[in-house]
């Protein structure tokens, strides 16, 4: 399964990446599982770890950790929004 992952704002700066394309193991099928998978890279990626205030979107809709992730999805992680 191949997906695109985007990072924004402080998370983008911390990770040093604005986006990446990933081939995921078959057992990673939710946003929460993807996030844990990324955090397990260690180092700066712990910014995605449990307890960090990170929001997610799949295909440009904000979602919770239980949301499914499918092939070719666009998944984004970012801090709570501060527009307006």
């Amino acid at each position, binding site marked *: 399964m191949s997906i695109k992952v985007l990072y924004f704002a402080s998370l983008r700066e911390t990770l040093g990446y604005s986006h990446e394309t990933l081939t995921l193991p078959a057992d990673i099928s939710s946003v929460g599982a993807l996030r844990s998978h990324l955090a397990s890279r260690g180092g700066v990626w712990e910014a995605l770890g449990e307890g960090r205030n990170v929001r997610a979107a799949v295909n440009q809709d904000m979602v919770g950790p239980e949301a499914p992730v499918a092939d070719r999805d666009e998944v984004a992680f970012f801090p709570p*929004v501060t527009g307006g």
Partner: protein
Amino acid sequence: MSVSVQEADFDTGAEIAALSAGRDDVGAVATFVGLVRADKLAGSGDSVQAMTLEHYPGMTEKALAAIEAEAGQRWTLLGTRIIHRYGRLLPGQQIVFVGVASPHRGDAFAACEFIMDYLKTRAPFWKKEDTPQGGQWVDAREADDAAAGRWAQG
């Protein structure tokens, strides 16, 4: 019903006029303009010198259109307009415009405030303040979550 996400400034007078132009059933236009404040920084005598707004192109427009559509389902509206800028902005400059036209003022006020509250918690924008000590991301405010929570339907 229309949404713009842009670097350019906007003309509030023209936007307000457009919300009732050519029609005679609009009795009320409620609007909101958000501006950059030169807030004092905690623990120093310095103030915010500029602000840079980052957003998520594509999702931003989609989120704002969804908020606008939800307002249109909740209230009797004859027109809505949302403009949100991104990029670098100075204190006193305009960030966001929300305008709502309705036959009656109650619906116009409620929908305008609803759109702002939802925009603050659901539209993917992030502010970074320029200070003499460098850039500093603005923290989300719990008060904004509480304001958006008021509109939850029982």
